[in-house]
């Protein structure tokens, strides 16, 4: 497949994706605090079981956050690779 990357548009996308990712981080932080408050106000036989499920969800948010950060990293790395290749090609033409 031909190598095509529009660096200007990808840079814009990275900015927007980063913005949504930051918003997501704030939301997931709030989720932790809501779970904590719910557990403070519900202390019954099933408290531990419920808390264990909530902890699984919290742990999942960490992996999700990491994966979503990786999306940004993948775009950045590919963009960098594209820029490096462009420079190399430009230099080759200069040398010719």
């Amino acid at each position, binding site marked *: 497949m031909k190598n095509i990357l529009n660096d200007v548009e990808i840079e814009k996308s990275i900015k927007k994706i980063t913005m949504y990712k930051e918003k997501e981080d704030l939301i997931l932080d709030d*989720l932790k605090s809501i779970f904590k408050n719910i557990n403070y106000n*519900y202390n019954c*036989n*099933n408290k531990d079981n419920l808390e264990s499920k909530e902890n699984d969800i919290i742990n999942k948010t960490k992996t999700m956050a990491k994966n979503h950060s990786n999306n940004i990293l993948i775009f950045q790395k590919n963009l960098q690779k594209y820029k490096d290749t462009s420079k190399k090609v430009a230099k080759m033409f200069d040398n010719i």
Partner: protein
Amino acid sequence: MQVNILKMKAEINKLNNLIENYELTYLNLYNEINKASSFWQDNNARNYFKNIEIEKRNTKRFIDEVNSCKDIYKFLIEKYEKLGNKISVNIKNKDDVVSELNKYLDKLQSIINYYDNLDLSFCPNERIYLLNEKDKLKEEKNQVNNIKDGIKEKFSYIEEIEKQISSKIAKIDIEILKETDIKGFI
């Protein structure tokens, strides 16, 4: 056990807003990522955007899992608010409370028995007074019995709610996510 219904309701409202907000944010996030597919097209991109579809489904599933927890909170609020806005009771004391009330009822019954065994034939005036007192004790005994039944009923109600919550929790299956290996996309 302790349940504060009003505070839990406030947290559920926050959770509703949070889920709504998150649904919008994750859709925007993936729309933006998918838009980028028009500006990056090579083998890495092909693999990456295929993986994004899986990641998006996982995020949707995550929201469903949070909603399952929310449904349990809503269920327990709906059930416990029938008992009051703030419930605080030691469930382990159920047998002790019932046993103390039974002891009290036994005492009342033994006093009533004393009254029954009194020979009041020789004192007609006092007889009326004493029979009134005995009726008052019988009434007191009935009231304590009703209180005991009410307490037992409430304990059973709480135990039943907790049993139902336990079975609802057991049905929640939180899928474990793997971290994306980015090597194939760079």
